[in-house]
């Protein structure tokens, strides 16, 4: 079987990071076409380099890491101060040290943390291909295709009740 390789569309680390932030609803842009149809290998993003080039990506990056913790393992070399801030927000802390030039309480507000410390999640609906691991998304598609469910919510509820 022929293997296919993903190639980064962008050479610049900041553009690669912007693509991920936009795709997962942590940031908006006035140039959406720039990112349409692009491919980015998350593991290749040098976060410190990206933030040095565009410091404004700090807050959306923290939002992304809080709302989609799978990126905590996908990004290589997450700066320690950012990691600690994310951990504190995910633990439900309302007060903490500011992270570089972003106020902690503003970050908490941006991350959509509700009263009991859980993440409310972004308002924007995110497709399952982006919410789940690719293998899980594929498995859900297969189960849906096998029939017996009116929609994916029914299927997921059934799987949860079996667990």
């Amino acid at each position, binding site marked *: 079987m022929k293997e296919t390789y993903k190639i980064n569309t962008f050479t610049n680390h900041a553009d690669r990071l*912007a693509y991920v*932030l*936009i795709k997962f609803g*942590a*940031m*908006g*842009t*006035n*140039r959406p076409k*720039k990112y349409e149809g692009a491919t980015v290998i998350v593991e290749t993003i040098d976060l410190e380099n990206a933030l040095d*080039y*565009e*410091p*404004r*990506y*700090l*807050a*959306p990056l923290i*939002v992304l890491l809080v709302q989609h913790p799978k990126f905590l393992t996908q990004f290589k070399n997450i700066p320690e101060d950012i990691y600690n801030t994310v951990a504190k927000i995910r633990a439900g802390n309302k007060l903490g040290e500011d992270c*570089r*030039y*972003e*106020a902690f*309480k*503003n970050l908490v*507000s*941006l991350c959509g943390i509700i009263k009991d410390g859980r993440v409310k999640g*972004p*308002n*924007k609906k995110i497709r399952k291909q982006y919410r789940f691991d690719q293998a899980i998304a594929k498995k859900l598609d297969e189960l849906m295709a096998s029939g017996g469910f009116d929609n994916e919510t029914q299927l997921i509820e059934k799987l949860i009740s079996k667990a």
Partner: protein
Amino acid sequence: MDLNKIGKELDKRIQLADVKSYVDQGVGLVPKDIEMKIMGQIALLADEEISSLIELNTTFDVDAQVKASAEVANILDQLLKEKGLALDRLSDEIWMPPDTIWETQYDGEYVKILKARPIDVLVSKGVKAPAKNKKLIRDAMGIYGNELLKRIDDFGGDSSFFNI
């Protein structure tokens, strides 16, 4: 971001809420002198000229000083939420240059929306948060040149920080 559209929708909802309140409780909302002053990144995004010249990104918080009753503020919160936005509660703490010019974007029956000129927003960012806005100010220097740098210095900032 179309501020005119938001203004129209807000006016419509306020009118409905006013009528509903009158019917339900015999008292209207008395909506008057409702004013939103838009600042920050949203003001840049809402400006067609600068938005066409510079790539801008934003989180989903709206920096705006809002003068309205609690009932009207709730209607605004709901409207922004439906658009995936949220009002930044710390907006009143944002410093703007004292000579900021506020351009009227919408002047409806109940609501008036004003927006700071892009150069005033950029001066505010350059003076108060230079590290965070380094790239943005550098990009904007291509549009506003020395005028932007001079105003950053005039208000206590350090324009040399943005030298390439």
